[in-house]
């Protein structure tokens, strides 16, 4: 009996799908419930940021680049600022460097809590999702008090930082860190002991150490596989030269390991924040930097919550950069998904996608063609309402 070649049954996840709150398209070919092939299509929110940078001055670029991502906005700004400072040959004052570290670690806590919630939601564990996001509010409020905004902190300026930490704020951060540490320990207990949750994470999406190294994955994804890659440790930058960071790794490389690594990184962040607040040096917040940045090329790498963030900045001696290249951590982790997806159940796919903590706005940085075939219409509220009434008549 000859079997007919089976028709491919492709399940599209994205560009519009409840599993992903951001646009990215994944095509999973399934046989029953088992995935046999996976493909990725990105670029739905490509905004042309790299090109735009070439037409603005360094200060304007700083805020533009900060808006690449809404979750790790501070690290983008830090990476750019560190690069520009290196080009200009200045060093931010030690107090400014300490505040950058403080903000970066607060942001890491916020990002990891966000991820914990999203991953729990993908697993259908909505209670954990709600609790994690409730506790995330604490750190977002702290950032709001520190910088005046919950998302785009805008703490960095070229040559320093804008906002200072006073005694009162320092005390309240210390207090909240204790609370968050207790909560994180509780979440650690849940993700490592609850059997229904372990059923969705243990042994799922295992990425071997060797494979992770070859694929060039970064961040907690690769640290969960036992590869020692953390820019804060490998090549300390900014204030991390003064505040030592311990490398957190795990051996198994499955989803559970990624949960463990991220929560352990939270502990590490609490420790660093306490250390920074205890030992924060006094002094100025900014140094003066000339508007024209000397000619040169610089590579600036920082450790974002999702992994290594890479900036390449080329200056041509004017007020505007010649080229800014951004490589975000999510981009190099995609390879791991298509690599490990095959053979897993369809139900594991959202978890697997969430496992690398993808950030689409980070990936697609760069163009929207304005359609000129139809005239653009500006409508006010009444016009829109009338239009709706006419349409449904």
């Amino acid at each position, binding site marked *: 009996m000859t079997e007919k070649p089976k028709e491919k049954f492709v399940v599209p996840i994205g560009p519009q799908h409840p599993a992903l709150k951001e646009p990215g398209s994944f095509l999973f070919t399934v046989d029953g419930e088992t995935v046999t092939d996976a493909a990725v299509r990105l670029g739905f929110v490509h905004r042309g940021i790299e090109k735009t940078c070439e037409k603005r001055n360094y200060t304007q670029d700083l805020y533009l680049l900060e808006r690449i991502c809404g979750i790790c906005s501070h690290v983008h700004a830090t990476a750019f600022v560190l690069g520009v400072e290196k080009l200009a040959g200045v060093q931010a004052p030690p107090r400014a460097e300490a505040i950058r570290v403080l903000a970066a670690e607060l942001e890491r806590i916020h990002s990891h809590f966000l991820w914990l919630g999203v991953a729990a939601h993908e697993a259908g564990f909505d209670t954990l999702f709600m609790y994690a996001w409730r506790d995330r509010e604490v750190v977002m409020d702290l950032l709001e008090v520190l910088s*005046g905004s919950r998302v785009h902190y805008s703490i960095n300026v070229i040559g320093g930082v804008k906002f200072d930490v006073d005694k009162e704020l320092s005390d309240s951060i210390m207090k909240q860190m204790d609370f968050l540490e207790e909560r994180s320990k509780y979440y650690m207990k849940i993700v490592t002991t*609850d059997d229904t949750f372990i059923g969705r994470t243990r042994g799922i999406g295992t990425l071997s150490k060797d494979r992770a190294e070859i694929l060039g994955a970064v961040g907690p994804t690769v640290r969960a596989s036992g590869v020692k890659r953390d820019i804060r440790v490998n090549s300390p930058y900014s204030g991390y030269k003064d505040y030592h960071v311990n490398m957190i790794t795990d051996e198994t490389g499955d989803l559970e390991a990624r949960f463990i690594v991220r929560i352990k990184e939270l502990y590490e962040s609490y420790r660093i924040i306490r250390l920074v607040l205890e030992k924060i040096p006094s002094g100025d917040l900014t140094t003066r930097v000339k508007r024209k940045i000397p000619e040169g090329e610089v590579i600036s790498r920082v450790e974002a919550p999702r992994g290594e963030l890479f900036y390449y900045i080329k200056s041509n001696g004017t007020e505007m950069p010649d080229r800014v290249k951004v490589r975000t951590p999510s981009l190099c982790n995609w390879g791991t998904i298509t690599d490990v997806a095959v053979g897993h159940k369809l139900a594991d796919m959202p978890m697997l996608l969430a496992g690398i903590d993808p950030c689409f706005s980070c990936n697609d940085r760069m163009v929207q063609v304005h359609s000129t075939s139809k005239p653009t219409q500006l409508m006010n509220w009444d016009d829109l309402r009338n239009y709706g009434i006419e349409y449904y008549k």
Partner: protein
Amino acid sequence: MTIGVLFGDLLKSLFKKPSTQNYPYSKISAPERLRGKLVYDPEKCIGCMLCIKDCPSNAIELITVDKVNKRFVLRYHPDKCVFCAQCVENCRFKCLSMSNSLWEMASTSKEAFEVYYGREEDIAILLERAAQPGINEPACEE
């Protein structure tokens, strides 16, 4: 087999007040540094234009009414503003600041997104000028 590790918290939550903020009905006070709407003090401004130079989104324009007497009007577009506070950072005379009470800026009309700051008489002059378009324009040739 361990299941239901969350049970303790679950019970606690049942008897706890919900942590949801009842936002439009009850407001919590904004922190001191909150970056809300830009506020401009025309008395202090000398018209150095540094704020405009570094604005990443072209949200502010400084219109000179009388340069000698330092009379300026600042046209501010809250819809373009990204609330980065770089202009506040740049201003050496502290005539710009960001309000921590004016931050609910949603509006159904476009007028709310064009704000004029300055002395009242200056704004009046400016708006008058804008209200009479095409005075000096030559008529279209037949």
